[in-house]
């Protein structure tokens, strides 16, 4: 039996019923008095100069309030990692996704009609769409003010001596692996409503995973607009999925702000589905050259990786994904000699952004596919090979990651046990495994990795929790409520979590890096501890005992075993409040994990703890059609402590299905920079019918730094799925597929090639 009352319980999501009944209010439902509707016009070319623009017909349309172009964007209003991307482009467009004009109108229909009436002439320029070709000397330049399409972002590390280790290695394998664009497919599309008050203070309703950082961006936008000393309030409606897509501020938000200010009316911009596919960011496509070697006993000696990333036309935070790729590259398994060199290259394609795993799935696809190749060459069973090289608690990896808890061995055991259960090998059937490491104790990407929480107790024994953390569907509200309820001896329904408004919620760096349970959870726990201390102190006076003899449980404060010394918590709260000189209990806590920013050599303990996992899969490959059928899926994760196993399993199931889509079917198809499948008919997101039964063993390794021992689990579910599938296909039919997605066409082509060569 668990020692906890609320933690570790399978408590359904607090907002599940309202969502299922269609009552939850998303950005689509936000309506303000006098609100106008904004629409954005995108480029008709992948690379072109704008030679003429005529807005007159569009402006003459009844119901159109205003039209903005690149000319109307203040000089300093810029987006992206380099802060060089204006929300509306002037003179030149660099990709089909580039915003060239925006309309505010009385209705969405009028706004759409107005877009059709805007006349633009373009002088088409040669485009470049292949990052490897874009690196060649005579390649056209995406940005004329640069000397080369290769970004000056030196993602380069070398620990140990790779060349020496390669010479010493008994077995060496290499490979080239490529991944393509995939996208988040949030059920709730992107959108924002911007509104100014009479004094030019901004309120913006927006789907964001980073309310505090978004607020900072919007304050800068106001400043750029010449609005000094104004406030920016960010309100989040219920978010229909994030997966990283809402980890930055985007053109549509800035455009909504500009339109609202110009019209002096609230302006709403909401994406329709094709726009969501075309104008939001994807996962980064990568080309990876990898070489790994081991000694004759299978001990991994070195890992050498060169990578080219398609940066698209603009530099977003997506260009920093190599910083997270470094994690599996340096620290998945024990490997002393590591070299990594990644180049981000401008093309006239769409630009990418954060997506669940933030580079880890791409890197892990190459590493874990290649590990199987190495194991085969060394003549060692792939699971055994991973056991030989697994990480151990107490390890310090070459990147200076301090491994505290590590259940990788237990995950391998659990997966192997499940996979080997149904034994006999039939033709075309094979098994494959792949492991993962991910940050599980926050991730210090920004200067602060913190989160603040305020708790306010009322007269009825209820706690209001104001958290900086963001629930975008993953269930942080539940986790927060469970942690606070556990600590204060309350029930989950006694805790009301508020995370919607920067005017009332403290700062948080954002819902990213699988950090919310760990960081926002620890912040909530810290604040609850302060309330608890006050309750025990004041309760001890009421019950005439010492604070440390008291317990909080089931809405009561009591001395265990002494029925005389017991009192309802709400009664105690009222007593404290309504006595002369009374007080009310409020606490706050800011938790910033003890982790480190990367140094100039990329060394630094990025996270307070790391999450490990192993996925195992059994597939059947139809050798005549190339079709891959997933027969069994096991995903074991080392999670520290499950605060809510139901939600944890949900994260794993969702992650795995997302990973299966990545592995087998999903791709944003671009032809010369143009998105060819901006709809769910042709973007092959897995459906409920494609989902397979997933066994998700939860390996508990309570972590001393996690709230009640918990580690992060938001992203891992989709990290090692693709290599596990690729490895299983190889085991089944002997072909190694090195490009994602692994479509029947690719498998059949490889099988035919293999047959030809025999």
């Amino acid at each position, binding site marked *: 039996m668990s020692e906890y009352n609320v933690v570790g319980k399978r408590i359904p999501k607090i907002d599940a019923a309202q969502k299922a009944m269609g009552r939850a209010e998303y950005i689509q439902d936000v309506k303000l008095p006098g609100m106008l509707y904004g629409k954005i016009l995108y480029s008709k070319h992948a690379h072109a100069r704008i030679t003429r623009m005529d807005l007159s017909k569009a402006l003459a349309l009844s119901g159109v309030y205003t039209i903005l172009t690149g000319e109307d964007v203040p000089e300093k209003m810029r987006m992206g990692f380099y802060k060089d991307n204006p929300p509306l482009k002037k003179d030149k467009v660099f990709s089909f996704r580039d915003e060239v004009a925006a309309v505010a109108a009385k209705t969405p229909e009028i706004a759409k009609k107005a877009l059709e009436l805007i006349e633009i002439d373009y002088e088409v320029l040669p485009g470049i769409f292949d990052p490897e070709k874009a690196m060649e000397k005579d390649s056209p330049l995406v940005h004329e003010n640069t000397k080369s399409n290769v970004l000056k972002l030196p993602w380069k590390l070398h620990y140990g001596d790779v060349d020496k280790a390669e010479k010493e290695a008994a077995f060496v394998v290499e490979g080239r692996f490529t991944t393509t664009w995939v996208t988040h497919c949030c059920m709730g599309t992107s959108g924002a409503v911007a509104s100014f008050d009479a004094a030019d203070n901004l309120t913006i309703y927006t789907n964001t995973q980073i309310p505090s950082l978004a607020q900072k961006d919007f304050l800068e936008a106001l400043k750029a607009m010449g609005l000094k000393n104004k406030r920016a309030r960010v309100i989040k409606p219920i978010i229909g999925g994030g997966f990283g897509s809402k980890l930055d501020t985007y053109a549509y938000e800035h455009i909504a702000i500009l339109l609202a200010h110009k019209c002096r009316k609230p302006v709403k911009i909401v994406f329709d589905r094709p726009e969501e596919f075309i104008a939001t960011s994807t996962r980064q496509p990568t080309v990876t050259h990898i070489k790994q070697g081991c000694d004759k006993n299978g001990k991994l000696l070195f890992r050498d990786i060169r990578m080219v990333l398609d940066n698209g036309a603009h530099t977003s935070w997506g260009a920093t994904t190599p910083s997270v790729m470094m994690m599996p590259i340096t620290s998945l398994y024990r490997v002393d000699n590591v070299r990594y060199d990644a180049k981000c290259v401008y093309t006239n394609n769409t630009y990418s952004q954060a997506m669940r795993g933030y580079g880890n799935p791409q890197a892990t696809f190459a590493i874990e596919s290649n590990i199987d190749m190495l194991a085969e060459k060394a003549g060692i069973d792939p699971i055994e090979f991973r056991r030989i090289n697994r990480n151990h608690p107490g390890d310090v990896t070459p990147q200076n990651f301090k491994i505290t808890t590590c259940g990788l061995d237990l995950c391998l055991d659990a997966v192997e046990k499940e996979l080997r259960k149904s034994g006999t090998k039939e033709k075309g059937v094979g098994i494959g495994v792949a492991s993962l490491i991910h940050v599980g104790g926050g991730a210090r990407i920004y200067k602060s990795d913190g989160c603040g929480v305020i708790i306010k107790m009322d007269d009825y024994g209820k706690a209001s929790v104001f958290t900086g953390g963001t629930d975008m569907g993953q269930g942080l509200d539940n986790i927060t409520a469970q942690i606070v309820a556990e600590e204060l001896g309350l029930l989950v329904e006694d805790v009301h979590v508020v995370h919607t408004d920067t005017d009332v919620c403290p700062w948080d760096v954002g819902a990213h890096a699988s950090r919310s349970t760990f960081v926002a959870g620890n912040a909530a726990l810290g604040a609850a501890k302060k309330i608890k201390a006050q309750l025990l102190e004041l309760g001890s006076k009421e019950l005439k005992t010492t604070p440390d003899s008291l317990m909080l449980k089931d809405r009561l404060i009591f001395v265990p075993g002494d029925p005389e010394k017991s009192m309802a918590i709400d009664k105690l709260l009222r007593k404290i409040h309504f006595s002369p000189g009374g007080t009310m209990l409020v606490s706050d806590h800011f938790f910033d994990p003890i982790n480190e920013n990367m140094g100039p050599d990329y060394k630094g303990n990025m996270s307070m703890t790391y999450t490990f996992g192993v996925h195992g899969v059994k597939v059947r490959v139809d050798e005549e059609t190339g079709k891959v059928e997933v027969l069994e899926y096991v995903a074991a994760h080392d999670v520290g402590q499950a605060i809510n196993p139901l939600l944890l399993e949900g994260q794993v199931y969702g992650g795995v299905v997302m990973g299966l889509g990545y592995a087998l079917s999903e791709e944003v198809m671009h032809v010369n920079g143009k998105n060819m499948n901006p709809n769910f*008919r042709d973007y092959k997101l897995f459906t409920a*019918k*494609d989902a397979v039964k997933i066994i998700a063993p939860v390996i508990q390794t309570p972590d001393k730094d996690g709230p009640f021992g918990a580690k992060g689990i938001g992203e891992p579910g989709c990290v090692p799925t693709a290599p596990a599938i690729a490895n299983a296909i190889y085991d089944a039919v002997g072909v190694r597929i090195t490009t994602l997605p692994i479509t029947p066409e690719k498998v059949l082509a490889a099988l035919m090639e293999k047959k030809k060569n025999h």
Partner: protein
Amino acid sequence: MKPFNYLTPATVEEAVSLFGQHSETAKYIAGGTDVIVKLKDGWMEPDYLISLKKIEELSELRKNENTGDLTIGATVTHATLEKSIMIQKEYPIIYDAVSNIGSLQVRNVGTIGGNLMNAVPSADGAVPMIALDGVALIQGPGGERSVEVKDLFIEPYKTVLKPGEILKKITIPAPAPRTGSAYIKFGRRAAMELPLIGIGVLLSLDADLETCARARIVLGVAGPTPMRAYEAEKLLTGKKITEDLLRQAGEKAADESKVRDSVRGSAWHRKEMIRVQVRRMGLKCLEMIKRN
């Protein structure tokens, strides 16, 4: 979406007459799973939508016990066909095709007539109707006429129906004894999928349970319209059916097909699928016949 008037006639005559009144700006609509999408995407902008859903005779699904003819009204939904025990038992190729269209929600409202009239090369519903020698009954301003389903399609989104004409029903003659039929939709995922290629095979055997009396090989997405692979059918008819012969028929059907490369899939793989699946569906038909 442009606003429109929604009309709900009770008879075919009334529907045709309403169309006559608004001919330039009217469209018929049944389940709406294709029409609504086109309206939303702005592909069509009618002022009048004439619904066929209230016309009772169009929703008839009946087998004539005397002649053995099967009548499928144009507004019979995929779900109705899918759930019919008679369809499952006697027309497995129809079941195979309609039970994998879209999703449960789409099948609950989408109709077989709509699937045919949308006239896309990937129409799952067209393949079995052609394989079963279905005949379409059409009514318009000039009265009634019949067209074999295989001759309904001209090119993508275009049928032989003239403006104002309505597809009323499909009549399928009684299947010969010792008949098996099967369809496979080959796609990347298990639901909400258009076929990359659709393959339907129907075989009837002589009393010797070996000689092929009739063969139908029908392909979807193998050309601008759903098509029969006549040469492949000829190869089988009158011969003793073996796996090897079915393999040859697959080769022939692949040669006859007019598959092409698209972003959805490449021509060579589609051909390969025809080769493989004609044989597999043929074998499935033989198994079915033997089982019965």
